[in-house]
């Protein structure tokens, strides 16, 4: 039995969950969201889309295979989705103090300490998840050693500005020049493009990219409310008037929808898992996808030139849109996976083939 400090999670509705601390010993507030994936915590925790959130993992056993080292490849960390742990705190049921894996370098707890991120274990994460499911996402705070802190709503801030790159960076030297608007991009998206003979020009979220030369435009995933990224939306509206292929993922999907004139709304508790089924509209072809989003595009508000591309089989929400005549399409789910299933990674090829068609 490990000696650990008492900790508790308090929700804005007053619910208290008592547990014990691991990782960094410090109190932290944010929005409490849950993810039902059963594997992939090093990837999830470094996903910038989780910025400002206290993440609940519904799978109870966490930390089993430790955390890999910080080797880099193509100027990116090889085993992570960004440079640091992005979640504000981690909430789990059973922490594995002992880990074992050939590729592990440290324990999850040590890694969280390094990034000053608190963890709490011994929580009835199923009860907590049900509460969030019923009441919707809530603000919450983790209190370690009785050091109280204020609630914090990350959605009132421009989180994208926090996680986006500050200056343009170019990766690779491939045939296809892809301009990537970084709203909190996951490394694996860049890795996919690089594997398909592309040069990736990664620019900040509010970068005026019209002077750049590129073959295709990509808008990345990212955290928070899409309406916060007004600069990006304005820039995208210009791009929509042209014919250069556009592809977007997650927040990128929502931003392009907003740019086209459609509306977005906040889901009660979002989709965060590895098992979201989506249907390719008009077919019986389904895919299992990895997802992480709290906002969604309202199908009914799509302008005339646009159509729904994919639909969620569980709750019929929009999972993608495409332009009826131009080479523009976006998806709500994560074809780059990491973590999660890679069933839809053909969409990267689809995008590249659109670039080829124009060359």
């Amino acid at each position, binding site marked *: 039995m490990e000696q650990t400090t008492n900790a508790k999670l308090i929700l804005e509705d007053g619910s208290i969950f008592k547990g014990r601390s691991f990782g960094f010993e410090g109190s932290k507030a944010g929005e409490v969201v849950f993810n039902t994936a059963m594997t992939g915590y090093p990837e999830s925790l470094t996903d910038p889309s989780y910025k400002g959130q206290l993440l609940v993992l519904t799978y109870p056993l966490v930390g089993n295979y430790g955390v890999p080292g910080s080797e880099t490849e193509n100027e990116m960390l090889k085993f992570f989705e960004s440079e640091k742990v992005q979640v504000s705190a981690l909430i789990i049921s059973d922490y594995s103090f002992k880990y074992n894996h050939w590729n592990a370098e440290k324990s999850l707890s040590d890694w969280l300490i390094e990034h000053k991120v608190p963890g709490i274990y011994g929580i009835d994460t199923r009860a907590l998840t049900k509460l969030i*499911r019923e009441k919707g996402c809530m603000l919450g705070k983790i209190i370690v050693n009785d050091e109280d802190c204020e609630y914090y709503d990350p959605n009132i801030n421009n989180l994208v500005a926090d996680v986006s790159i500050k200056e343009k960076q170019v990766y690779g030297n491939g045939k296809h020049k892809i301009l990537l608007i970084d709203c909190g991009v996951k490394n694996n998206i860049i890795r996919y493009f690089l594997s398909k003979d592309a040069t990736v020009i990664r620019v900040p979220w509010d970068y005026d990219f019209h002077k750049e030369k590129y073959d295709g435009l990509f808008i990345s995933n990212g955290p928070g409310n899409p309406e916060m990224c007004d600069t990006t939306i304005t820039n995208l509206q210009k791009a929509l008037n042209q014919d250069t292929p556009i592809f977007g993922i997650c927040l990128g999907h929502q931003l392009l929808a907003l740019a086209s004139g459609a509306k977005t709304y906040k889901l009660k508790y979002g989709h965060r898992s590895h098992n979201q089924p989506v249907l390719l509209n008009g077919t019986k072809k389904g895919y299992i996808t990895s997802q992480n989003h709290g906002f969604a595009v309202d199908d009914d508000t799509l302008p005339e030139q646009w159509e729904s591309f994919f639909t969620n089989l569980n709750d019929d929400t929009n999972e993608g849109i495409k332009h009826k005549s131009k080479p523009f399409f976006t998806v709500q789910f994560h074809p780059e996976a990491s973590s999660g299933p890679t*069933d839809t990674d053909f969409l990267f090829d689809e995008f590249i083939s659109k670039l080829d068609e124009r060359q």
Partner: protein
Amino acid sequence: MPRVWSELKLKEMENKIQKVLVLGSGALKIGEAGEFDYSGSQALKALKEEGVETVLINPNIATVQTSEKIADKIYFLPVTPYFVEKVIKKEKPEGVLLSFGGQTALNCGIELFKQDVFKNNNVKVLGTPIQSIMDTENRESFVNKLDEIDVVSARSMAVNSTEKALEAVKELGFPVIIRAAYTLGGQGSGFCNNEEELTEMSEKAFAYSNQILVEESLKGWKEIEYEVVRDAYDNCITVCNMENFDPLGIHTGESIVVAPSQTLTNAEYHKLRQLSIKIIRHIGIVGECNVQYALDPNSEDYRIIEVNARLSRSSALASKATGYPLAFVAAKLALGFALPDIKNAVTKTTSAFFEPSLDYIVCKIPRWDLGKFLGVSKEIGSSMKSVGEVMAIGRSFEEAIQKGLRMIGQAMHGFVGNKELESGDIKKGLSQPTDMRIFVIATAMLQGWTVEEIFDLTKIDRWFLEKLSNIVSINSKIESYNSLIDFPIPLLKKAKQTGFSDFQLARSIFKEAFIGTDEQIQEIRSFRKSNNIIPAVKQIDTLAAEYPAQTNYLYLTYNGDTNDIEYENDGRSVIVLGSGAYRIGSSVEFDWCSVNALETVKEQNYRSVMINYNPETVSTDYDICDRLYFDELSYERTLDIIELESPKGVIVSVGGQTPNNLAIRLHNQKVPILGTSPESIDRAENRYKFSQMLDNLVVDQPEWKELSSISDVFEFTDNVGFPVMVRPSYVLSGAAMNVVSNKEELEHFLKMAANVSKKYPVVVSKFMENTKEIEMDAVAKNGKLIAYAISEHIEFAGVHSGDATMMFPPQKVYVETVRRIKRITNHIANELKISGPFNIQYLAKDNDIKVIECNLRASRSFPFVSKILKTNFIDIATKIMLDVPVEKPDKSLFDLEYIGVKAPQFSFSRLAKADPILGVDMSSTGEVGCIGEDYYEAILKSMLSVGYNIPKKNILLSTGPARSKIELLNSSKLLKERNYNLFATKGSSQFLAENGIKSTVLYWPDSKEQPNTLDYIKNQKIDLVINIPKNLSQDELYNDYHIRRAAVDHNIPLITNARLASAFIIAFCKYSMDDITIKSWDEYKMD
């Protein structure tokens, strides 16, 4: 982009199918057990939902799938090409499902396909095309298929002879693994470290298959499985992945398995997942498929081990582990539905096209019964020996595995807190795994071995070992307290969260003062409850609480604070206790009883609540009851659930001995037990009380005594004479009970089996020879007999009733005997005020009747007699227990115009070195029940159903003692008349010659003279071996052990009982295959 969607036509076409034939898997055997009752039942349910007429062939009469209302027509016939073709010709189905009846159904289907039977009769194979199945079954084409898509399989070479196998290994290098193609659960496979082992192993393997594979050994790699589903529109999902606790080298059926995988990173998990989908697409599966991988523990390197293009043990486990009904969905897909068309059976609102997310861990543990077999090797490896399994659910690994180790029902209390093992050689116990390895690990840890040292010898992932080590260290903290007064509450909570039972806690805290009484256990329980440490009830909902689900599939955990469901407290719950792990002596028959009891409970408008933890069963299917607790049937857990449910009552009499044992203990805690009073149950179970009662009723019983010194034992045998049966209460080694014929044997046995003492007395009883055994299965109400069925054993007493061949109605019993048995039964029922099911075993010689045993619960033969008599005994019994009026059924055994014969299925071929002999301890793993126009037809059908054939030409006789020689004389004459070639051992041949029957002498195995019995057997020159041991003493048994074992190892039918052999011979001499009637159950009418 995804392929264009143009196959909608396919669905239209498939939907036209109106009538489908489903093949079952026959008797339960090692490697093919209850899981196929579950998958077949699910498939039939799915077909029924679509309005498809169903025909089922399955001789396993004890199953749920062979019950009324599940299939439209049921044939209790062997699942062999001959009989299936006959049924096809008669029933003219349009489609056939081959993947729901295990390897038996699949092999039969492949054979029929090769013979063009499906084509010639216009029967469409639904689901996965048969060519795809064949591609996965034949190793060479399988490897070629994988090569086409750059998927790596273990380096392997298919060979047709031992010489070629030796050549192959020159290329691969030792160690290698040998596998026989087309076999069940790894039959005929094993590891070889040198040429000698290779030669021996490959010769054996060739007895099962004409092709064997020599493969590179990946010992020590992780073993990972995926259950994959694909529809006709190319939609694919992986429903579950599983990780073996035991690394590669131990068959997955012999491994402890967890789901989901615990030590895989996201990259590894999804790499293997994606490969599974790639494979299933390339092979062209439509339905369900299992993919097994070896994964390098030091890189992402992998190998495909095998693909099972059918429902399997793993798929049944995956269904229970996730709540995703794989077999049900697979059947729908076979009819042409697309995955997105089907709804999630648990949430009912979301789609069946999704991958379940678990928020718990399950742990499967195999149940072995190797102690029941004489001479068997206890080592476990690449072929299966276990007879059942359990699944434990928890929210920590420690919790799940400790639950599971209790569930296997071998007197273990968890990972620690067990009686000390005979220490033995720990190093050997770790490196050469036996059925006890997990407990060897516990012993090692308790003795201070480090995780690293244990890892070196076992290669079990350190993560698992660390978790186990955590249990040991918590236990030592618990042990540092001697009473509850100063016991820290956080430690108590931690102990419960890591799976410690109240019993374990009591033992670790009270130490020597703990004698295992319920009072002591209650002390812990009260302390715990007063500190509010109680388990929470959680739902299994397939989506980790992401969507609301009205699921009734539940488990209990201490790693949670709140219950997922609210209780009504309306007193309308009726709890049925299930049977737990399948084991020798308790299997699918009690599942049938449980399921039927639940149905009656529901019909009577009570809330049906099930507790059981066996993933191979139908009773653990959440749509069979109103509430399913997939949890322990322990005293502690049952009380936990009873406290939550506040039920009207608990039914303990339909799940076999496990729940029956709880009756009095629950009763003492004021739990209402429905039916016969627990005091009566105790009077029947307690040898002294029961004996006293019989004396008072003036009912005869074989003389017996419980004795605590060897001299007392001799005094007893002086009085009653030999032979006697001896049952030690505590067994050190060797067989648990035995029949001995003289003083020397008795002395030898007592020394070998146990130290007789006051603490460990032995029960010695007079053993009745040449006596008939008769079974009474009955239901009574307030002591009055309502329904009964009397069946007769073909074998004389001495063969365990579970191993005996039974006929119902009895054919060779005096009417007076039947009358007396009925009268005694009435007396006993009345005396014990029985209200519910019961079974009494009788001995009858002339008209002399003795009672040997009485169980106030449903017996193994309840489904058999219920189905033959077409009177559901469990339904009647349950109504009585619920106090609902019942009428006496108007049918009686005298009205039957047909005969049922129940025959045992043995799995000796799986149990290397075990002596395939029948005795007082049960050794069969399953059974069939067939119906015939007369006794001989029924016996022929049932013997063919358990793997016997009508011999072609050559029969070997070794007929044992004088009595059985005489017994077999007429049938030997009959064989001669039918032009069979008789071969016999010396004495038997002599006896036959004296009686004018010619036979060829074959010399005993230990003789150097030619021709030798063993050569004839090895060269497959014999079609049937009849070997009757002289008597049941150890020395004699070993004498012809080699003949029996060789027969089993070379897959030659063997009979070891003279009366059964005689009945079988007369049957096949009387009837040829063509004479056998092909009639469905409903075509057998009553008078």
